[in-house]
């Protein structure tokens, strides 16, 4: 059928739906729904790790293969440093920039390396906003409780307390750098309500929150003359005789040369795993989201946590083909947009947590109430025209310019026509286990941002990632910088690979897979 004909039911049922109230699910119903429909509970998609710090722990097969993969660095590799620095930051997204800026401000010599350009990241795409409890009726404690509920009570309490308490000072820092958060009439920061939150707490820059923050942080990294190593992919970490981290080895993707960097501390801010396309899902993630930091940390002996749980953002575009997997911001649901099945019915409280909303969309589609595309995809409607209907014409354009423009490029006006969506692989809930200074169990190896784990439990709440990046980017940067002043540079070896390879051999891992992946293999070979 013509797409417009199929969309009629959304238009026809809009007024009736607006009178409806759907309650959030009780904890028991929620658990049942998730166990039945959430991709995290598809047993066949997971397997236990055979060796390494997390031996026996289950993770997605795609990730397990890479974690058990071999290093490209061979015996006899020349480890003479090309550069020497106090703090080496790997990754040019939000956490990397924050870490570099704070370490630099604390007086350390800093180098920032990234396999793409500075700023090419998931952070730049964050549209929904940043959770910080600035409203008078809100508090860091409430922020803590909401996040804990969203994370199925599995969040690391210490990490979480640190994040929610440091939020307001992070907002102040960003404002001082010139970030233009949306304001209320009285000049206070405007807060929006996000999925899974009991109070409005999202700071936003229209639907360009991540872009605005990243524009500013990138500019600041350049203004501070922080040394950059762009288009250089980390392929291995180095360690001294005690197994402490002492630097990293990179592959320059332009000239294919090896680059060795000696550093007193290394901060991995390498982001997530969307481009592994776990269970074949499309992803909202950037080109380089291949979990490199997880592989590097794992080989050096860092323990991972919650690596069996991934976030599928409820609203990834399914139509048009060109936008498959691209995110339709949760902000639209925050402002009242309904999810509607092929029968014109709502089926979930749209502001329930992401895992619940995603599982319910998968349920609708599996039970035949989805809308199919000829390319074999299926989805449900997100009633975007409802916003203009409820809040007046021009609301979509004013509040979601990025979204409008993205669809306008394909001649779709989402203020008039609903959008077809299905969950898209969005975020790795877990990652490398860190302490409150963002340090791993490997001395002088820090991990910040999405690559780290524990903070978000088994499901990250909307808007908590941008804050995570800023808080733990800062803490890793400051801790690494403070330590640099009083410590010598450790020896650069790849001694840790010997043990890892012996383990791999013992467990028959001769798959020939070399990790990290660096970039997904999308190039057609034949």
């Amino acid at each position, binding site marked *: *059928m013509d797409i417009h004909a199929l969309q009629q039911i959304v238009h026809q049922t809009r007024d009736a739906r607006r009178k409806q109230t759907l309650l959030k699910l009780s904890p028991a119903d929620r658990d049942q729904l998730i166990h039945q429909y959430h991709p995290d509970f598809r047993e066949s998609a997971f397997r236990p790790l055979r060796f390494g710090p997390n031996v026996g722990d289950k993770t997605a097969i795609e990730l397990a293969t890479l974690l058990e993969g071999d290093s490209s660095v061979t015996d006899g590799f020349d480890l003479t440093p090309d550069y020497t620095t106090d703090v080496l930051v790997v990754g040019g997204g939000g956490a990397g920039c924050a870490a570099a800026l704070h370490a630099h401000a604390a007086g350390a010599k800093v180098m920032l390396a990234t396999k793409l350009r500075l700023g090419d990241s998931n952070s730049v795409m964050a549209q929904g906003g940043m959770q910080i409890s*600035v409203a008078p009726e809100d508090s860091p404690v409430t922020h803590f409780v909401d996040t804990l509920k969203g994370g199925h009570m599995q969040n690391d309490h210490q990490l979480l307390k640190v994040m929610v308490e440091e939020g307001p000072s992070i907002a102040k820092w960003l404002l001082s*750098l010139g970030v233009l958060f949306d304001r209320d009439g009285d000049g*206070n920061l405007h807060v929006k309500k996000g999925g899974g939150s*009991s109070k409005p707490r999202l700071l936003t820059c229209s639907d360009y929150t991540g872009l605005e923050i990243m524009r500013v942080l990138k*500019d600041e990294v350049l203004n501070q003359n922080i040394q950059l190593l762009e288009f250089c992919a980390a392929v291995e970490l180095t360690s001294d005789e005690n197994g402490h981290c002492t630097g990293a080895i990179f592959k320059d993707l332009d000239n294919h040369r090896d680059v060795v960097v000696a550093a007193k501390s290394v901060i991995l801010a390498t982001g997530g795993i969307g481009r592994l396309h776990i269970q074949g899902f499309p992803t909202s993630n950037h080109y380089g989201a291949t979990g490199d930091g997880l592989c590097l940390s794992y080989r050096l002996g860092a323990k991972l946590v919650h690596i069996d749980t991934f976030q599928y953002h409820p609203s990834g575009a399914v139509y048009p083909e060109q936008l498959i997997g691209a995110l339709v911001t949760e902000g639209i649901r925050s402002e009242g947009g309904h999810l509607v099945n092929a029968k014109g019915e709502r089926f979930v409280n749209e502001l329930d947590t992401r895992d619940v909303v995603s599982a319910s969309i998968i349920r609708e589609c599996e039970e035949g109430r*989805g*809308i*199919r595309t*000829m390319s074999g995809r299926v989805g449900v409607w997100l009633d975007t025209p409802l916003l203009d209907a409820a809040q007046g014409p021009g609301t979509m354009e004013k509040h979601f310019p990025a979204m409008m423009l993205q669809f306008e490029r394909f001649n779709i006006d989402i203020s008039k026509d609903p959008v077809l969506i299905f969950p898209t692989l969005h975020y790795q809930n877990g990652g490398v286990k860190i302490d409150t200074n963002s340090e791993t169990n490997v001395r002088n190896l820090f991990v910040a941002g999405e690559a780290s784990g524990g903070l978000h439990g088994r499901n990250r709440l909307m808007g908590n990632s941008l804050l995570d990046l800023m808080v733990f980017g800062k803490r890793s940067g400051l801790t690494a910088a403070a330590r640099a002043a009083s410590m010598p540079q450790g020896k650069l070896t790849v001694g840790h690979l010997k043990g890892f390879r012996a383990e791999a051999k013992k467990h028959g891992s001769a798959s020939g897979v070399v990790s990290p992946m660096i970039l997904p293999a999308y190039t057609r070979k034949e």
Partner: protein
Amino acid sequence: MAQEDKENIIDQPEVLRHKMVTVEIAGKKYDVPEGITIIKALWYSGQEVVRGAGCLGGFCGACAAYYRTKDDPKVRTCLACQMAVQDGMSITMMPPFPARKATYDIRTLKDPKQDLFNLYPEAPLCRNCNACTEACPQKIDVREGVWKAVFGDFKSVSEMFMDCVMCGMCTPVCIADIAPNLVALYVSRAQGAHFTEKPVGLDIRIKEIEDGRFNDEWTKLLKMNEKELADHCATVK
């Protein structure tokens, strides 16, 4: 259910037809499926993409590209991850352009509106050709923004350039050697850091945290066992 499924299928004849089109990438012709994005066309035609791909979501500006459609002399700009290919299209990725970025400490500027002319002395030399506006894939009125910056209307510039992905396509076309995106970035940051009201509520909250206003609540909460904590969480709606 099967019946229902059949009814709820969107017509996409283009998906079934698998029609191939011929495009020219950096001067060489390739056959690629119609309607895929330019980035996907690069992959499809066997190119290793390192530079020229970033977020793949239309936000990072890494994939700035030039294209021309069949028989049209007009060379246009786009973000390659957001543009579908069509038959006869000629495409080339934009190389990194050596624009000069001024360096400054945004927080310690004394007179940001005057400082603009020290940092970017070329900014007032705009000759009104409007090429920057035409080059913007985000449809920003770039020329107008440059003039507003020069006239000190920093607020308008910051609003106009909220959509800017820093792809830099406004820069190579400027006959006055202005880098409008960099000018706008400076202006927007100055607007935020110097000309925007300080949110009083934020300072109050920071002080409350420093003064330990939530300490009792924290102590109570963190002492709870698993069950108590779950019960407490359930009361927060």
